[in-house]
């Protein structure tokens, strides 16, 4: 078996998710190649070559792959897929955009967001917003799979894989990148943070999210939000933790003013330790919290910041 992993990268750096996808590839077994596609990606390729378990890094460095638009990136992967039994990518918005297109170009099914590898053709994945776990078996010769990063521990860095260029350049007259508006933050990325503190509708308004800042600073935490808080317009969408937002599994998750709707729980219930602060002691969030504090968050948060 041989596996091709599409590297995830942002702002000229290899994204942490890639090391988790390589870990999933190791569980499948076989040679693991990483494809780094993009424009000016030499440094990213070198970072990928250091990941344990990687045999070879293939680099498609061309303006055609800037921003990893689906049309050229899928064409590139479909071109290379013939050499492999499995094509893997993170279940990020990039992976989810590109991989189904690759699968259809190769006339095979795609398996989304696996959380465990049972065998080279059998995987576990959440369905119904994580309310059931399906075990699925692919009958296709080529398996095209997206990997939920929180399901696999990242591989370490200590390797020195060979790096080789890929010459194939995809034609694309159909789609053009216009612009990107990314949230600017000095805090860790939600998906990679060891501590996450999230606010819900109980925060009352966007201004009150500042109450989380001091605590996040002290804990080195990322700040998230429930869908209710996003829909109420308190904070932008990219802060959303849940089935329809980011899936996180930090060491410590602190849910503040969050009732614990199923859709939110699906995004954080694999966290190691969960703390809930809510004034409603009947809130479902307490059923999954390791430590629950029934309190008014407007009193508890300043006190917590002071005690830390």
């Amino acid at each position, binding site marked *: 078996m041989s596996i091709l992993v599409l590297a995830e990268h*942002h702002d000229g750096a290899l994204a942490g998710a890639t090391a988790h996808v390589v870990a999933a590839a190791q569980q499948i077994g076989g040679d693991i190649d990483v494809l780094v596609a993009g424009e000016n990606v030499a440094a990213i390729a070198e970072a990928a070559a250091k990941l344990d378990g990687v045999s070879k890094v293939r680099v498609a460095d061309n303006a055609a792959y800037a*921003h990893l638009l*689906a*049309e050229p990136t899928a064409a590139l992967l479909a071109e290379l897929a013939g050499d492999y039994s499995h094509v893997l990518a993170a279940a*990020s*918005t*990039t992976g*989810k*955009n*590109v*991989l*189904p*297109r*690759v*699968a*259809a170009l190769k006339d095979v*099914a*795609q398996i*989304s*967001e696996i959380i465990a590898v049972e065998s080279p053709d*059998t995987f576990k994945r959440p*369905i*119904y*917003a994580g*309310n*059931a*776990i*399906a*075990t*699925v*078996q*692919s009958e296709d010769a080529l398996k095209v799979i997206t990997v939920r990063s929180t399901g696999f521990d990242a591989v370490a860095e200590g390797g020195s894989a060979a790096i080789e260029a890929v010459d194939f350049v995809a034609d694309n007259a*159909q789609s*053009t*990148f*216009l*612009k990107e508006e*990314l*949230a600017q933050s000095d805090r860790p*990325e939600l*998906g990679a943070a060891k*501590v996450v503190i999230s606010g819900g509708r109980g925060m009352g308004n966007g201004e009150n999210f500042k109450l989380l800042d001091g605590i996040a600073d002290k804990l080195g935490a990322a700040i998230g939000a429930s869908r209710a808080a996003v*829909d109420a317009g308190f904070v932008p*969408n990219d802060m959303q933790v849940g089935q*329809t937002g*980011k899936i996180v599994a930090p*060491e*410590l998750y602190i849910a503040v003013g969050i009732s614990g709707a*199923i859709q939110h729980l699906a995004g954080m*219930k694999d966290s190691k*330790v*969960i*703390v809930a602060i809510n004034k409603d002691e009947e809130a479902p969030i*307490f*059923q999954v919290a*390791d*430590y*629950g*504090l029934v309190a008014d968050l407007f009193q508890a948060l300043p*006190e917590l910041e002071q005690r830390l």
Partner: protein
Amino acid sequence: MKVFVAVKRVIDYNVKIRVKPDHSDVDLTSVKMAMNPFCEIAVEEAVRLKEKGVATEIVAVTIGPKAAQEQLRTALALGADRAIHVETDERVESLGAAKALAKLVEEEQPGLVILGKQAIDTDNNQTGQMLAALTGLPQGTFASAVDVDGEKVQVTREVDGGLQTVELTLPAIVTTDLRLNEPRYAKLPDIMKAKKKPLDVKTPADLGVSVGSRVKLVKVEPPAERQGGVKVGSVDELVDKLKNEAKVIS
């Protein structure tokens, strides 16, 4: 411009699901079914395009059992002009659905196809992208804004970390994210009128495609239950537990 909108019949999003005792699947007997929420957003976007004079005709399409015609009638009540039902009792996954849709796109040549980004049953998030591949069309997935401008469409996409805007040549495939719009409710007179709108029934064989899945569902289990822990009485006690018991802060 003709707009296609694909809809899927799924379990109502408010229903708590149960896994069958034999772990063969989720139990859907006598469970309330509804249109997939992301598909409702797709229908709404198509209707708004028609209200703006961009779309001239809206065709709602579904692939599934006979009962899925209920969801087509809902789409018709919301403003679709006609509907196509590709009827099958097979377990259809994304590739099969995309193949049937691709045939219909080839026959009908819509300028835009709008689909939900994912269905809340299988959570696959694949059909739109696969349809784009099979038809050779560009794709704008996870859309939070769609602006048709002559021969092109600008799609603002919800990506990790923020928003990305791409421009696609038409025809194109768009999949909807949550914040694209807030779907309206169907009004009673429109529900009555929808019963008289045309609804064509075809089979996968009529389209010359096979919609069966090549992914075998081996088993379905309930997720591991997380045990609730303890209630703490104060912030001090909480900080103490986190430091000394859970050891997650120092």
